[in-house]
């Protein structure tokens, strides 16, 4: 492999000098030269390793005529954007004739499944795949994510919003390319049933009066932070650059936590309450706490009565008013570690392109995914989008999602289910709730 690096390096150096001519023949000679050089390189390869590393960047800069070899790039994206992604990759390939040796295949593997599949068998997994940011640490630990190429780091950091960049970072390393900043949730509601969605109590009253359902997936560790963060609880894990968890700061076992948990219990006790967050599995809906990925389904469902709002406020058991908070989340694009540098370079370039401003703009136009790119966020179309503006309004109250161990999600589902099933109920004393939260906090702190 070292030989190959050196050969490429020498070839690029030669091409660099010739590139000015821009003639095809020059390129041809260059490749021929590269081949002859490769033979001689074999003898000196061992000594040249370090040099190769430093000059590799230079090679990238002048890569117009580098021989990238051949290969197949497998891309996993959600079903909704398979065709979109194919079209974009075609554009990309057309603009980069130097990658002509590469073919690609786009498979429909949802963001939720992608991480699980990647971890099961990294070698058979996709080279580029979309995933929700909460899977980042897990993927890094499993060795399924390559760091972002050095030449792309600055561009990624400056072009995307700070939250999404933070979400793609583990320790000090940037591991993924942000694609969307819309992985948060807000309220979709039926205008004809709910006239004022500003308070949770009012919302439930109106839904109960109409005999309709309000969906809020409180047994999910992702949605129930709306309550805990709303009352000011903290849930933080620290993580080292290999993706391993090395500390935590969780304050659920506090008075604020009890207020949040009691509010969940009150909500779950309402006859209109339904646990869920999927429009297509919901029936008789008055309102649903859900994200932008369901916006078209929600529009179909509510028709003319479609409306969006930030999450409501609620009056806690201590008499104070709190705003429901929650996670602000992101979808990322990851590149798998490769044992072929050339292929890695192609993957890096493609991932960079698929997360670039123009593709994010096009993706928003095609399927309505909220961009993480600052320029696209500032565009008029995005600003006037009902769902995205509700999300933007809600984002002011949310906390950027960090990295949490798998056990956190399991435990949070356990906590939520204990509320829904009535293990924790209106008759539970504050001490009972505190004990449950203490157990939760201890278990979360012990999770790795």
């Amino acid at each position: 492999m070292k030989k190959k690096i050196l050969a490429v390096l020498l070839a690029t150096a030669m091409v660099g000098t010739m590139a000015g001519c821009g003639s095809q023949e020059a390129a041809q000679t260059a490749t021929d030269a590269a081949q002859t050089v490769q033979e001689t390189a074999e003898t000196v390869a061992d000594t040249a390793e370090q040099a190769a590393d430093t000059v590799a960047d230079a090679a990238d800069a002048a890569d117009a005529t580098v021989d990238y070899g051949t290969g197949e790039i497998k891309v996993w994206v959600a079903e909704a954007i398979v065709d979109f992604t194919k079209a974009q990759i075609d554009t990309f390939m057309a603009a980069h004739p130097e990658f002509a040796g590469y073919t690609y295949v786009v498979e429909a593997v949802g963001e939720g499944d992608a991480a699980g599949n990647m971890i099961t068998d990294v070698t058979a997994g996709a080279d580029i795949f979309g995933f929700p940011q909460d899977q980042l640490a897990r993927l890094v630990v499993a060795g399924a994510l390559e760091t972002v190429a050095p030449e792309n780091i600055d561009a990624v950091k400056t072009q995307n919003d700070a939250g999404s960049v933070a979400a793609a970072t583990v320790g000090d390393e940037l591991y993924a390319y942000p694609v969307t900043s819309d992985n948060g949730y807000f309220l979709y509601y039926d205008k004809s049933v709910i006239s004022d969605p500003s308070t949770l109590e009012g919302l439930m009253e109106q839904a109960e009066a109409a005999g309709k359902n309000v969906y809020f997936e409180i047994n999910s560790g992702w949605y129930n932070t709306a309550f805990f963060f709303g009352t000011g609880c903290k849930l933080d894990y620290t993580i080292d650059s290999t993706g391993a968890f090395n500390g935590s700061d969780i304050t659920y076992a506090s008075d604020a936590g009890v207020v949040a948990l009691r509010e969940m219990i009150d909500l779950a006790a309402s006859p209109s309450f339904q646990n869920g967050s999927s429009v297509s599995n919901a029936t008789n809906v008055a309102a649903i706490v859900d994200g932008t990925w369901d916006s078209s389904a929600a529009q179909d469902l509510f028709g003319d009565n479609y409306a969006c709002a930030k999450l409501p406020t609620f009056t806690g058991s201590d008499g104070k008013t709190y705003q429901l908070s929650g996670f602000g989340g992101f979808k990322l694009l990851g590149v798998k570690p490769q044992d072929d540098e050339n292929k890695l370079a192609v993957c890096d370039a493609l991932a960079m392109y698929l997360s670039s401003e123009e593709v994010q703009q096009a993706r928003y136009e095609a399927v309505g995914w909220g961009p993480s790119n600052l320029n696209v966020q500032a565009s008029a179309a995005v600003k006037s989008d009902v769902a995205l503006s509700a999300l933007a309004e809600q984002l002011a109250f949310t906390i950027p999602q960090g990295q949490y161990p798998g056990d956190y999600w399991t435990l949070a589902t356990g906590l939520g289910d204990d509320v829904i099933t009535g293990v924790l109920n209106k008759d539970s004393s504050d001490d009972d709730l505190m004990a449950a939260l203490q157990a939760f906090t201890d278990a979360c702190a012990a999770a790795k």
Partner: protein
Amino acid sequence: MAAENNKNKSGVAAVFSGIGKNIAEIGTTFIEGDWKTRVSYLIMGFGPICRGAFLRGFMYLFCQAGIISWIYFYGWKYLSKLNSLGTVETAKVGRKTVYGDDSFLILLFGLLSLILVIALIALWRMNIAENRKEEQILKAGKKLPGNKRDFLSLFDSNFDKTLLALPVLGIFVFTVLPIIFMICVAFTNYDATHQSPSKLFTWVGMDNFKELLSFGPNGFGSTFVSVLLWTLVWAFFATFLDYFLGMAVAILINKKGIRFKKLWRTILVMTIAVPQFVSLLYLMKMFAKDGLINTYLMKWGWIHEAIPFWTNPMLARITIIVINIWIGIPYLMLIATGLLMNIPEDLYESAKIDGATPWQMFRHITLPYMLFVTGPYLLTQYTGNLNNFNVIFLLTQGGPKSMALAGGAGRTDLLVTWLYKITLNDTNYKMAAVIGIMVFIVTAVISLVVYNMLPSVKDEEGFQ
């Protein structure tokens, strides 16, 4: 395995004396044998080939050549690392990833190589016995069976070998090997943080079993006990409720004077024919808190709050058992219908003359007969239900979960569905392997105990 444990000490002694005998025979064969036999110790099948038994000889030779070359070209690099499961870590060279040892493949193919080596030794032993047998036949002045007869015997006296060769091989590679593999995994630290190929995993002895027996808060131990209890309770209800209700429906349909017998049966049998992932997923939606049943009950004013079929642990368990009756009755109905017709009519006639009520007839004629005949079936049903994945997975996926349970287990999780979650969601393979072994032990113990209690096993001639 359990059956082998039952053997007493004389069994162990027999094994040792058997090994001793084998070694002695290998020695005497070498001393007493001619040069062809002696060469066969190195080149298997040499003796038979020289004596004209080409078919047998070449079979040994090909096996030897095949196994040795496989291990030489492929297996050795795994086999040699089996005791450490790999030492070379995955490294980065520049932007490139250079994969080190893959513990998973080392364990898998290392085991395969190991088994092949054992097979080679067994073949070698057979090859020696074959040589000795041939020599003795020749010494006695008889002729060796010809190649043609050897070949034809594969369709006659050795037809069993022909019939069983492929199935046994298939079972070995696709069932036995994976099971040995997973038993081994139970003694390693293979989990989410030791995920091959980018990380190595290695042997850790009994650590995982200790973790299973840890009974602290969120320890696996208490969860295991709770899941196990529900598994046993579920299997009991799922088996016996189905059994008696199915029999009742069969008797009802068989009742004299009931018409359209075929129609009723056909309606019930639909549930067997429609794939479960279709019918159960639909039923799951139907019973959801916002599903059809709740909506209609509320619409009609029968209830005011939705019944939490899936979210209340107790109710979820009951709902699952009830839905399982829906699935199970048709099978039992079919079986019972067939068997009920086998009961001699005159038994009932004479009972009737004695003035027996229908209940008495059922209690004293039908039930004992059915229990006797279907005893083994009931047992397999019970063990099948212990591992009934589909029903639980498609209906509740084990939920509702609770903080009181470790490893993501839910209130309706059976051991197998829990195992599935640990494997796929948590990629905690080591604990999955440990729990898998536990599932096996539970199933095997129950089967063994119940099997020996069955009337049809105790008294084979009872009803004949």
